[in-house]
């Protein structure tokens, strides 16, 4: 059937969800690897479907759209989900054998939320999708309930999360109050005339969304959650919910608003600057690589906001580019972390001593991922950074761009520290690190991603600029 109809992919995902759920009911006692494979295959199919989809259709009288942005979102979510599931298949932890189905079902639920969110043009849909995305995340964080870190991480994530969704909802109520309707199409005019109630609402929502994308000072949950949760999942939440957050932000604050959007520039610019500085600085002293990546992730959110702060076609386009580059780089890094953890049972940077001598390819790929995150040429991350700086400078934000550029050096410092452990120091034990096949595939995929985007970014740039254009052109 034609995937260009709205809700087709969503319903597909829902069926998959049910299938996995039923599978769980049927094969109760057996180990749950099968569920994983089913999920994987299903997601692969859906991803292809999403790629073949055409934008333009609308459903539920305009509250659910299938436009360029939503398609971008869906593809990104599905792709990251696919990679994450691949990696999950390599998890040897007993819980995944015994309760794997739960995991995948909930995972798919959250993913479903994201897909819907990407298309939401109505406040109700938006909110529901948001919660559908978030609540499973809390569960998944605490999935390894045996580990004593997991519940704490889950608790923190949950409390902060639900508070922030309360804030979002509160803001949302004001938006509704100002607009008199839940259709987002009503937002731009109100913003244009500067309706205080509307601005109040949007301001509150920005606070809540700030939590989702983990911008300073709403980032506090990030390091703890990352440290607590299982790595494939962390790899996923390090990108998917944040991307969702950005999609929501684009919908609420940019789409159709046009000129009036500059209103938000100072706010976003400040958030960007603070996130970049704080994130990079706090990453320096980290001993645990997951925390390190968490903080560097915060910094990356800062760079994304930097691009957003440009509030221009190029700016938004480059934010999308950055998201994809960040997806490959960051997930890849986490997958390597997972591989090492599988052998060393440790996430300390210490555990990476002499990795280059033990398993060169693994070390090399981690190095490349880190370099991509650090923004080194011929890696996706380089263009990403460059593009956001360009967007910022285009809007005359020289200082902000300069700040960002200087702090990339700090970022490279802590990335190089890891590189030093892997390449310069000698290994404690010379044995190579075993990498399960699915994980290897996932890593390979990410590697391919950063290199392809890095060597020939042109098609991507054009695609994303086209997406951005739609946001500014509509009414």
């Amino acid at each position: 059937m034609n995937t260009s109809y709205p809700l087709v992919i969503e319903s597909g995902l829902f069926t998959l969800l049910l299938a996995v759920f039923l599978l769980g009911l049927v094969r109760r006692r057996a180990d749950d690897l099968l569920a994983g494979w089913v999920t994987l295959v299903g997601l692969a199919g859906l991803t292809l479907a999403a790629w073949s989809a055409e934008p333009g259709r609308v459903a539920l009288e305009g509250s659910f759209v299938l436009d360029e942005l939503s398609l971008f979102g869906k593809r990104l979510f599905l792709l990251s989900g696919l990679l994450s599931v691949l990696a999950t298949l390599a998890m040897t932890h007993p819980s995944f054998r015994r309760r794997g189905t739960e995991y995948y079902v909930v995972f798919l639920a959250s993913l479903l939320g994201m897909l819907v969110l990407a298309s939401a043009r109505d406040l109700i849909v938006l909110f529901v999708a948001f919660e559908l995305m978030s609540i499973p995340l809390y569960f998944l964080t605490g999935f390894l309930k045996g580990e004593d870190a997991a519940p704490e991480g889950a608790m923190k994530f949950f409390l902060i999360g639900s508070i922030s969704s309360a804030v979002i909802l509160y803001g949302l109520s004001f938006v509704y109050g100002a607009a008199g309707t839940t259709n987002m199409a009503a937002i731009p005019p109100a913003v244009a005339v500067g309706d205080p109630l509307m601005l109040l609402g949007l301001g509150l929502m920005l606070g809540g969304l700030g939590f989702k994308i983990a911008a300073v000072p709403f980032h506090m949950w990030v390091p703890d959650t990352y440290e607590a949760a299982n790595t494939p999942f962390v790899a996923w939440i390090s990108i998917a919910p944040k991307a969702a957050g950005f999609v929501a932000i684009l919908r609420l604050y940019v789409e159709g608003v046009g000129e009036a959007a500059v209103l938000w520039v100072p706010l976003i610019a400040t958030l960007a600057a603070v996130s970049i500085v704080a994130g990079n600085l706090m990453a320096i002293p980290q001993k645990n690589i997951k925390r390190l990546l968490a903080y560097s992730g915060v910094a990356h959110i800062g760079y994304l906001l930097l691009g957003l702060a440009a509030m221009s076609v190029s700016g938004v386009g480059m934010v999308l580019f950055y998201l994809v580059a960040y997806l490959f780089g960051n997930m890849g890094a986490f997958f390597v972390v997972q591989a090492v953890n599988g052998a060393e049972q440790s996430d300390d940077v210490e555990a990476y001593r002499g990795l280059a001598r033990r398993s060169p390819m693994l070390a090399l790929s981690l190095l490349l991922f880190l370099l991509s995150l650090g923004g080194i040429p011929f890696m996706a991350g380089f263009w990403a950074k460059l593009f956001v700086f360009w967007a910022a400078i285009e809007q005359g934000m020289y200082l902000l761009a300069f700040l960002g550029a200087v702090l990339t050096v700090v970022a490279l410092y802590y990335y190089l520290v890891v590189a030093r452990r892997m390449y310069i120091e000698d290994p404690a034990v010379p044995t190579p690190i075993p990498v399960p096949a699915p994980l290897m595939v996932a890593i390979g995929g990410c590697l391919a991603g950063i290199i392809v985007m890095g060597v020939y970014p042109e098609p991507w740039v054009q695609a994303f600029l086209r997406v951005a254009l739609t946001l500014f052109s509509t009414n």
Partner: protein
Amino acid sequence: MDSPLDPLVLAVVLAPVSAFMLLALVAPLRRSGRPAAVVSILGAATAFVSAVLVWRGLDAPLQRVWTWLPDANGALASVGFLADEQSSVMLLLVTLVSLLVQIYSLGYLSDEPAPGIGRYYAYQSLFAFSMLGLVVAPNLVQLFVCWELVGLCSYLLIGFWYRKPSAARAAVKAFWTTKAGDVGLLIGIVLLWRHTGTFDFAELRQLVDGGLVGIDGLALITFCIYLGAAGKSAQFPLHVWLPDAMEGPTPVSALIHAATMVTAGVYLLVRMAFLFALTPDVLLLVAWVGAGTALMAAMLACAQNDIKRVLAYSTVSQLGYMMTAIGAGFASAGFFHLLTHGVFKALLFLGAGAVIHAVGTNDITRMGGLARRMPQTMVVFLVGTLSLAGLPLFGGFLSKEEVLAAVWDGGMTGPFVFLLVAAFLTAFYMFRVVFLAFFGPETSRESEHGGGHAPHDAPWSMSLPLWALALASMAIGVYFTFHHPETAFEAPGWLAPLATGVASGGVVLAWLTFQRKMISAEALAQATGPLRTAAARGFWVDEAFVAVYRGMLMALARIVGWIDRYIVDGVLNVVSAWTVSGGDGLRGIQTGKVQDYVLALAAGVVAVMWWLRGAM
């Protein structure tokens, strides 16, 4: 203009350099010792022959240039040759001496290991080439290039026996001192180029003759150039390197530090005389410094016991003579003295070399009575001494008299007196050497060179050059005693007798003191008192330089080094350290307590609200 002489002039310059190339590139040949020497000597001989032909055949000045440094409009600097009467005569001197010295070295270095000899002759050929290049240089750039190269050769040859700490030190010292002068020369050249737009002597001359050279600022330029000359030609206070340079093998001292390189400074001024004529004040300076140097060096020479150092100081003093003449405005006189001095000073050095070679010591007080042992050497050495003392019929006579005449005619009474005194001292210290070394009682020499056997005259390879030079200086002397050359100045009638008288006075005094012992040397020393002690210490010029180097330069360097590590780099490290600590500090806010997280979140929201209040 294409002249048959062109290839000859080129041959003069290229013969040595090809010898050098051969020795430098063909390692086995170099290591083989004597064959290498032969190659080099052949080069020198070729150069000499062609030099003679050039000298005989030259009627009009001859210039050829090829572009060396191109720039937008053709050539910035070029290389080539300018053969006129000055340069051709100079070529003759240089080729002659270097040929003889190279032959002489065969004997002198007979017990040097083969590779050493190869190295030695490679340096020799390189030097010959550079010196000749300097002589024929048609412009300042080529002159400077060769100028530096001869400096390099002198450095290399002084340090030939680099295992001797003193030699290594002397070599570096020579290089540094002359280099200091060269800084001046380089600045001078650059300024002059900016001033006139050319490096070329001929063009410069035209400009000067045409009065197209602005006078203001010219004094600075000529002064800078003079600095260079002073460095090379060991004028006070840059003379300190020359005595130490005696650490090199004696033939080297003869060639480089007596006959040729040290006179390069004088030659430069002769070349540039027309320019200096425009700046009388600088000329005055040149004259006074020259005269002062002459006198001071003469005094120092009297206080030395090392035969080579005596000769070295006498060289300094003679260079002073030449400079004074140039300062007086009569470059020709200085140049003339340069030529004669080149011959007989080389002779003296080689003679001294023969003595040292035979005796195995430089100390004249430990020689004596050598006349009987090595008569030939005695004779030639005496010839040299008489020429240096400037007695009639000998090489130095007329040239010295001309210098005096020039100075007198230049109306510089002060320098004139200085020079007279110097002349007296010259005769004195030279004969002191003669009497102490060759006459008087034989002192017993246990530390004698070559074990028990008594000293004897040198082998042919050494005596041949000696005789050649002796004859040459005699010839010059006799010839010029009777044919007075045309000069721009006329010597007062009383000058010749006076000069002769003064010189003989010196001889007599020496004879009375060291031969007849009628005046005790001690008494003489007492008489001169503190002056002598000061002279023995070289007037503390060395100490002054050392003080500047250690006390100022090195101290400054240490301070800068410290600043670099602790301030410039220190600040950098502090900043980085702060960045790292900053990270640590920020971690503090990540308390791990969920309420604090909520607080942060709330604070963020409040901040956003606050900002909105402003925005609306």
